[in-house]
């Protein structure tokens, strides 16, 4: 599904290159649940941004679904956002002026999905995540965990093939975090959605089936998670 070849990212200031990523080459297959780990400033988020086409690599090649997306124009990129990629953020990033319902609806509107289909999909998501009662509330009326649930529901609404999550539980208490991670695992297992998450926590990383360890912009380690750790 994803192929990175020799991805490099650097910023140059005063003639000196500051590398954020170096020689990142990896392949992520459909249905994988990958956790990117590493210390602060290692380049995890940059890698996720590049995967999400929010940033362009300075050098290297990136293929998404067998298509070269290294330098993509806005129209095509947005097509991918609408149909294939869902984002989940550490700070949830729900739109404050929209209700829960409307937040989940937004991507469907961009995707130009008919009104009845929209309604049934949202109803389904609200139901699945147990937030039907909260649908008319605004984000600031929810707890962090609930907000992240809405964030995930929103990411799922467009039925993407991949979810990119940047520290999805970073702002949550451990009980809530666990709930979210279990949800991810379920989505990955039952619906075959590819998930790539950036995380600090060893524990969260182990919900996935593969861990990329990054340090100083270089992939140090690429390990499969033993099944036994999973629940």
């Amino acid at each position, binding site marked *: 599904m994803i192929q990175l070849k020799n991805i490099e990212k650097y910023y140059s200031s005063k003639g000196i290159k500051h590398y954020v990523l170096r020689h990142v080459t990896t392949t992520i297959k459909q249905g994988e649940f990958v956790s990117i780990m590493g210390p602060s400033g290692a380049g995890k988020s940059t890698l996720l941004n590049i995967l999400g086409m929010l940033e362009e690599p300075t050098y290297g090649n990136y293929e998404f679904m067998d298509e070269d997306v290294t330098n993509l124009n806005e129209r095509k990129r947005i097509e991918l956002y609408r149909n294939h990629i869902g984002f989940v953020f550490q700070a949830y990033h729900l739109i404050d*002026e929209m209700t829960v319902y409307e937040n989940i609806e937004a991507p469907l509107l*961009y995707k130009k999905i008919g009104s009845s289909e929209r309604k049934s999909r949202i109803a389904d998501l609200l139901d699945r995540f147990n937030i039907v009662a909260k649908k008319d509330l605004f984000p600031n009326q929810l707890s962090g965990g609930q907000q992240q649930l809405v964030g995930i529901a929103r990411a799922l609404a*467009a039925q993407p093939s991949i979810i990119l999550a940047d520290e999805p539980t970073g702002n949550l208490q451990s009980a809530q975090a666990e709930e979210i991670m279990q949800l991810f695992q379920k989505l990955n297992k039952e619906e075959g959605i590819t998930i790539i998450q950036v995380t600090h926590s060893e524990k969260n990383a182990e919900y996935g089936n593969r861990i990329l360890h990054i340090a100083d912009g270089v992939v140090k380690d690429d390990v499969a998670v033993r099944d036994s750790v999973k629940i």
Partner: protein
Amino acid sequence: MFKLNLKIAWRNLWKNKVYAAINIGGLALGLTAFVLMLLYINHEESYDTWSTDLKNVYQIRERHDFFTPDNKEHWNEISNSRIANLIRSKLPQAVAVTKVDNDWGFSNGFSLKVDNADPVIISKIKDSDSSFFKVFPYQFLQGSADKALENKETIVLKESLAMQLFGTTKVLGKTIKIVRWRSDKGTALTITGIVADPKFPQSVSFNAITRTGNKDKDPENPTNNNYCLVYTKLNKSSDTAVLNQTLQKLYVDFKKNLLNGQKKSYNDIYKDGKSPGLKVIPIETVHSNPPYTSGWFDKLKPVMAISAFLLLVSVINFINLATAQSVQRAKEVGVKKVLGSYKRQLTWQFLIESAMQSVISLFLCIILIEVVLPAFNNHFKVDLSFWHNAQLFVMISQLFGLFVFVTLLAGFYPAWILSNFNPVSVLKGNYENGLKGIALRNVLVIFQFIISVTFIISIGVMEMQSRYMNNKDLGFERGNLINIKTNYEDDFAERLKKIPGVEYVATTTQIMGNAFNVPEEVKYKGNAINLNTVTVTMDALPALGVKVMQGRIFSKEYKQDTVNTVVLNEAAANLFGKNLIGQTYGKVDWEGKTNIFQIVGIIKNYHNEGFDKAVLPTVYKVTSLGGTSNTNNLLVRFNTSKYKELISKIENEWKILYPDFPMEYTSMDDEFSKSLEENNRFMNMIILFSIVSVSLSLLGLFALSTFVAKRRTKEIAVRKVLGASNIQIVNLLNKSFLTLVIAANLISWPIAYIIVKKWLDGFAYRIDMPVFPFIAATLISVIIAILTVSIQARKAAVTDPVNALKYE
């Protein structure tokens, strides 16, 4: 999505109520001023557009110096009545030519008497000839254009007047007695037509057109001239340039002939840069080209500039607040971008938000206009209306254009900034990106304050000038002096003199409110001097209370005063030279005889007109030697405080002598206020606009400082933790804004200086450029800016730093 976007927009406005109110209210104010201006311009432009047949109608303008305010040559609306005949006989293109009375402004109108009803004064009753309705395509409700003025002693009424007098328009064949002036015997006129009131204003406005027969013929004696308005209808719309060349040739021949009859030489008259001239101008341009003053468009230019600036100030508020607020919207943009929204869609979303606010402003503006229009009409002596406007459709399309313009102007930049946010940085929580455009925002704040400070300076200077004018010595005593609009008649004057309290009864051809300039050329020690002549009675100068500089003024004790003595004003004396008392000068009269006049006194200049005009060099004489002129001024000076009682006594005497004509009078105090009126009106408007502009700028500054304080919450918190006091924090925030306000002040000084200087130059009597308003404006703007910002800064300063730092 559209619906959802509208919802978001609405929720955003609601969330930032104060900010939204400032934005929308400010914009509504700016729009109101602008739309009022538009209404006024539309009204002025609609003059003489009430019929398509008017495109072939032209006004004749003759170049001469008769009855001009400065005794110099101008292209006048009033022409020698003989010109009508000249055009009729010599210009084949002319289908019809008509002569109409000019609005001389000597009286408020004529007295009309229907049957046995009390006489009423009706203005704008104009005498014309049989061709009037052949030139002007009025729509006849009763009678017909061909027949109406066929016979003499007929009158055609406007529908509105017919309704006022009779309550119906079915009045053909009835007679009206018209008394033109106090001693007029009156003429009975038969109503032969009723015309509809046109929807748009007319430069030849009338309530009734009469044909008494006076306009049918020209004076037989070539030295006598009648002046009136002349209009012609041509067979097709013509090239005026070509036509005017033909007219010019005809006119030169005509003038040579006429001067020949007057035993004058053409070459003598037209020397020293004087030249004869005759031209036509299309009727729809008449209103915008008055003969002596600048047209309404030129007069309106400063006001237009002001209202445009006002709109600009409110638009700037809009832009400033929207970009400042963009920080709050950054996340939304970032999220939407990763959810699959095009940049274009986001731009549209924010433009629609601006549009929404513009629409609300526009509605508010329409309500505001309805509220202020009566006051506006009253103030500017117009009759504008928004809904009952013949040009409603034009108006609505203009409003729509304005709406689009304002939306784009106010919304485009913020929309562009917002939709350009980089999702990576805003989603990381790095909102500093939202501070882009801070330079632009500063420039806009400076710009706003330049406008406001310039306004404040202007008010200061204008206030000082108008105080100067209010208190300036007019050269005569304006208190306890009234002017009855009638000529001097011994019988009436003697009766008035017997009333206790009446000090003087006199007449003069020139007085404030009736500046009747009569030019003449005199010879003094071989030099030709051009003067303005005023004919007075013996008592006139003492009645006015003029101040004698040298010599004496007229008095009954000197028999010579009724023979050949004159009094000069200072301006005239300066032209003559020094040691004038007892000197003589000569003047050639129309028969070629030289009359000798002796100068017996010099008086201080006194004002007949507003302070924008210099007092003309004037000679005053009692004698009829060398020709006299006559106007309707009867001055009554009294020395009693029982003003009302006195007036009613005068009116009683009037009624005994002249029962058919109501008495009209003005007090000199009123006339003086009238001369200042236009200036005061302009000043009031500037003051109003300044207040609005300054408050808009301050509101903008207030809202902007709120956002800046919010934005710098973290910085403030950190500084406090490091030990900064509240005062230091307030100063910190003040400093950035104060720099802007001071910069604006420095820039606006020269701008205000140039503008105010130009305004002052329009007055012949003016103050020196004062420094005080400049300093005051700077102090005021700085102080209120500090106060405004401090309120917000204090709020930010006193908050507990823990709250700000906790959420990082």
